[in-house]
């Protein structure tokens, strides 16, 4: 299919569309940052962007390399601390949080720690970082990751970050904040939610040109696929122009 946008631009545009004006969002570097900045420059000028290292409400000039980069508190309302922003998140001030992962299960639990056995890993990954905190404490998390059969697995090698754990009510039983949890998952193939009853992954929309069959072929577990599956909207030229402005070197968007 002939497209004039890159896959990352599509993901960032779809993610940006989920963020509402006058709400707050915990972002990491890379794609979430582009999504947050794009939302701010389009439909959500009042979006409050927060970084885990202490940057609060910055007017980010160009894409930061790190979540502790000085760009994360450029013209910010506060250059604070991790204790401050994590406490704000624990107290309910943070509406959205972005997460990525190497593996996901049907309940939206995430693995970023090891592939294989923890004591003798096939691959050692960076660990939780702030992911467990974001997944525990924000009201709604948005997961952005690549989808294939090795990444969409029925059981994770390691639960780094909580999704809905093993089903409805499990987060609250574990002591996690009531009413929080995964909200949306965006992959290169489509967008998912989590079924209200079972808390399992449910397809909401495919990206333009992607079939439901492809979606199913790229998961090792059974996905909930309702009758009426939508299609995501590709990024219009204006959104693409803004994203190029945000990431002029193509650090994340690519060329």
């Amino acid at each position, binding site marked *: 299919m002939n497209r004039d946008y890159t896959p990352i631009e599509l993901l960032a545009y779809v993610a940006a569309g989920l963020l509402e004006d006058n709400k707050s969002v915990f972002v990491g*570097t*890379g794609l979430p940052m582009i999504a947050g900045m794009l939302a701010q420059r389009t439909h959500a000028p009042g979006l409050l962007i927060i970084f*885990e*290292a*202490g*940057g609060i409400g910055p007017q980010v*000039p*160009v894409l930061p*390399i*790190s*979540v*502790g*980069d*000085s760009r*994360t*508190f450029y013209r910010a309302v506060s*250059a*604070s*601390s*991790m*204790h401050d922003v*994590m406490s704000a998140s*624990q107290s309910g001030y943070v509406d959205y949080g972005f997460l990525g992962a190497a593996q996901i299960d049907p309940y939206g*639990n995430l693995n970023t*720690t090891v592939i294989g056995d*923890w004591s*003798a*890993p*096939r*691959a*050692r*990954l*960076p*660990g*939780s*970082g*702030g*992911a*467990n*905190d974001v997944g*525990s*404490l924000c009201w709604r998390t948005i997961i952005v990751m690549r989808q294939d059969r090795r990444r969409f697995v029925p059981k994770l090698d390691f*639960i*780094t*970050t*909580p999704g809905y*754990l093993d089903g409805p009510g*499990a*987060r609250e*039983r*574990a*002591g*996690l*904040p009531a009413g929080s949890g995964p909200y949306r998952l965006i992959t290169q193939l489509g967008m998912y939610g989590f079924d209200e009853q079972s808390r399992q992954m449910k397809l909401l929309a495919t990206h333009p040109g992607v079939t439901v069959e492809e979606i199913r072929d790229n998961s090792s577990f059974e996905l909930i696929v309702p009758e009426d599956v939508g299609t995501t909207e590709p990024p219009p030229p204006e959104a693409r122009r803004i994203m190029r402005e945000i990431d002029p*070197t*193509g*650090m*994340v968007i*690519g*060329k």
Partner: protein
Amino acid sequence: MNTLQVGHGELIGWHDPDEHRAWVATHKSRALEDKRTTVREAVERYVPDGAILACGGFGHIRVSMAVIYEIIRQRRRDLTFCGKTAVHDSDILIAAGCISRIEVAYAFGHELRGLSPASRRAAESGRCQVVGEISNAGYQWRFLAAAMGLPFVPARVMLGTDTLAHSSARVVEDPFSGKPICLLPACYPDVVLMHVHRCDRYGDAQIDGIAIEDFELARAARRLIVTTEEIVDDGVIRSQPWRTLIPYYLVDAVIEVPYGAHPTLMPDRYYFDEAHIGEWLRLSKTDAGAAEYFDKYVYGVDGFGEYLELVGGQEQLEYLRQVEHLEAPLRAPWLEEKK
């Protein structure tokens, strides 16, 4: 309190609060004393083999690289590292063979640059043992508990996950709400390194920009080595005391090292030296390459001034200042590879 779960990660850096009070009473002076020294003396005195080490900053932001290079130069061994937001600091110390054990909130990665070849190799081969998992907020609250002189602080993170099962935290029934809550044990590192913007000879230190977790970490540290972009007269500190994050009685050594965080980022002073970090990431793909790096930039130089000349001297440092102030475009080898 009813204990619901016990994490089986190794408990590192914990002390009984009364034991810690007694240690502070006898080891930490409350006298205003001139603590200026050299990185060589500070490492000889405060960083013994086998110590539990933590770094201020954020892994590749505001890291006291001058002291890290000296630890490598003095060939310290069997350090246990507090891998809170660990990036370039842990990567280079693991690759040099200084760290053999690490508790991990974040390690083995370089954020947008990708994974760290050298420290991943060490973790996967068992040369560096992961003694436990934790989250960033979790680690930071371990330091908060220590800073408060408490045995633990409660938090609502890690619950229900393998991160908790592999941590040193415990879950109990909260006597107030009746809900399960995670108790994070205090962590007092034996020695903490911190790089700051300005400090007086006694150790009163100010940091510009985000504090990250340095407020808590400075207070959790048993020994605290502070390197600073500049040593200022104590009158400068006293004219704006509200800017002081770290008062002198927490500090054991003060060393003036301009550009002492290079190649990591120093807010409002200089940006990441991506050319240098890129060279490290390229060379550290093999053990031989990492050894070449250490021969050139650590063992082969006599002090930090000579190192700065080797990485490009005043011209490169001026460029990094311009990038930090958005006056020059960012050039990064890993960025070129991505295109």
